[in-house]
């Protein structure tokens, strides 16, 4: 064991010496690995960033929530069959709310899309969530200004609105939106609250930042028919209780919708878990493709290393002969050149990683990115592996040289 250690230390010294002796060449060769590792690290960082943004976005909507709906979010059931189901009505919601014991909060929601206008500024196609005052307790919303609507405003179907941060910024620019009147489809609403930035751009229009919240009664008053279907949002008291809450909801909804024991459920209880699964499927493909493409640039770097190692072996034929004459074994010579390739790649990998960290700090200003420990470990491991793999063929060439031939080499 100690034996190997000496040899390896000798190999390391030789490697550092060889790199120092051919500075320009080493730098150029390393550059290939720097770029390769940098792009792999950036890719991994971007993926981490997207994942993190997604998780944050999801949790801003409330991670422990159930969504009772006529439609299942992710299912193979025929959409038209689901469409023919009875609507989930406000009456059903009221009865459910009265009967449910477990939930922390229960709120009906209905979506509608309208143009929101203030002065000359407007946002076309804004997603409105009509809901009750209790909805805010199903979310993790933070308020920049003002508050959510009160029970009185909710029950009285008042013309009040809570704006998402993006909507508010767009309509009001530098002004304070509070107590101003915006027009939704020409109907005046008073702004009573503005949300802080909630997080994820990934949720698109479903991002709370791009939404407007108004009382559900108001939605029915102006925009939707009374018997339209609503989604009941149920917040479980804790993640551990989510299954119990779901069980209770299932039973209650069957009762509320008057289903016989032998009838199938004609509603769905959706969870964000489904959303996560769906996300993982889509983003998984993007990840694979991205890493494959960046992997190609690493491959080009690796070929550069292999090329330069072959040159290095050729140049040092005589040195190999000398070493063999005084007792270096195949393994020793092999180890020496593998170490050299690995050291070049490791240096390249570290530089590439630092570069990636620097770049991701800049990119972070536009897109959410995050350099994580696993990216660092990944980059270092990959660069080491690249070195070993690309050094293998040259090192073997060196190891199997005939000492007599090698000593004669000029």
């Amino acid at each position, binding site marked *: 064991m*100690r*034996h190997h250690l*000496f*040899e390896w230390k*000798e190999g390391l010294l030789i490697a550092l*010496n060889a790199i120092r*002796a051919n500075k320009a060449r080493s730098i150029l060769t390393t550059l290939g690995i720097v770029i390769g590792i940098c792009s792999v690290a950036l890719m991994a960082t971007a993926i981490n960033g997207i994942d993190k943004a997604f998780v944050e976005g999801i949790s801003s909507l409330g991670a422990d929530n159930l969504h009772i709906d006529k439609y299942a979010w992710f299912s193979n059931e025929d959409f038209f069959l689901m469409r023919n189901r009875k609507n989930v009505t406000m009456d059903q919601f009221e009865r459910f709310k009265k009967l449910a014991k477990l939930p922390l909060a229960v709120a009906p929601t209905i979506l509608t899309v309208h143009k929101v206008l203030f002065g000359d500024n407007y946002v076309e196609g804004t997603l409105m969530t009509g809901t009750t005052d209790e909805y805010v307790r199903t979310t993790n919303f933070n308020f920049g200004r003002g508050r959510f609507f009160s029970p009185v405003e909710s029950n009285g179907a008042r013309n009040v609105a809570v704006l998402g941060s993006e909507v508010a910024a767009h309509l009001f620019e530098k002004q304070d939106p509070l107590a101003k009147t915006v027009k939704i489809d020409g109907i005046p609403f008073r702004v009573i609250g503005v949300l802080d930035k909630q997080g994820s751009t990934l949720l698109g229009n479903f991002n709370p930042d791009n939404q407007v919240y108004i009382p559900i009664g108001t939605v029915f008053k102006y925009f939707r028919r009374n018997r339209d279907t609503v989604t009941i949002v149920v917040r479980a008291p804790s993640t551990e209780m989510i299954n119990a809450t779901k069980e209770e909801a299932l039973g209650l909804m069957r009762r509320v919708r008057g289903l016989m024991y032998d009838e199938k459920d004609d509603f769905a209880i959706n969870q964000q878990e489904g959303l996560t699964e769906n996300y993982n499927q889509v983003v998984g493909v993007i990840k694979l493709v991205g890493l494959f493409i960046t992997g190609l640039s690493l491959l080009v770097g690796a070929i550069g290393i292999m090329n330069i190692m072959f040159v290095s072996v050729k140049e040092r034929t*005589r*040195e190999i*002969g*000398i*070493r*063999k*004459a*005084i*007792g*270096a*074994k*195949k*393994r*020793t010579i092999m180890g020496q050149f593998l170490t050299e390739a690995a050291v070049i790649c490791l240096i390249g990998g570290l530089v590439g990683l630092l570069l990636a960290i620097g770049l991701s700090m800049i990119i972070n200003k536009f897109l959410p990115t995050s350099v994580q420990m696993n990216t660092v470990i990944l980059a270092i491991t990959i660069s080491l592996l690249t070195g070993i793999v690309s050094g293998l063929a040259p090192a073997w060439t060196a190891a199997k040289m*005939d*000492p*007599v031939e090698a*000593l004669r080499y000029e």
Partner: protein
Amino acid sequence: MNIINLENITKIYQVGSEEVHALDGVSLKIDRNEYVAIMGPSGSGKSTLMNILGCLDTPTEGKYDLKGTDVSDMSDNALAEVRNREIGFVFQTFNLLPRATSFHNVELPLIYAGIPAARRHEMAEVALSSVGLKDRMLHKPSELSGGQRQRVAVARALVIGPSIILADEPTGNLDSKTGEDIMTLFHEIYEQGNTIILVTHEEYIANHAKRVIRLLDGKVESDKQVANHTVPARGK
């Protein structure tokens, strides 16, 4: 006891479609603490013989016993170990590692032998002192004269205490004065009880040895003791 015992050694090279018999049935015995010169014109097979004696190459046929062990068909790695432990090479072109110091060059066989650092340093220092280069330990070959380089090579050959010192035209790249110094060094090493095999084509160099083996066309032409071999003058 014979330290080297060659029996009917044959080495055949394939050059194109022709077979070249570089060595053709060479048999010889060399005792411990002998000082032998191997001579012969170019093409006589003396380089091939040296490569086989030095375990750098294996014979096509025949048996080579080194210290009682048959090394004629050992694996490459086993041969590497034998070279490391039993053979000290001194080459015409010195063959030092150009980027390493004298000290590191001398230390190298010890690294391959797996000797711990402290012991290694001590041994390397002793070897360099014995060739009179204690004050040149941290010089690189390019900072040394030809004679000094060859002394470093001799120190490297000696450092592990090998069974034989194999010197291939050790004075070939040196002027006659420096060459004479190196031959004096070899004589001292011989007197300390080492076995030296010298490959040369110079009569006056071969005359330093006590026994001269002449090769011709891959065969031993003559094998004689030298009655009045040159004993170099003492001192430097």
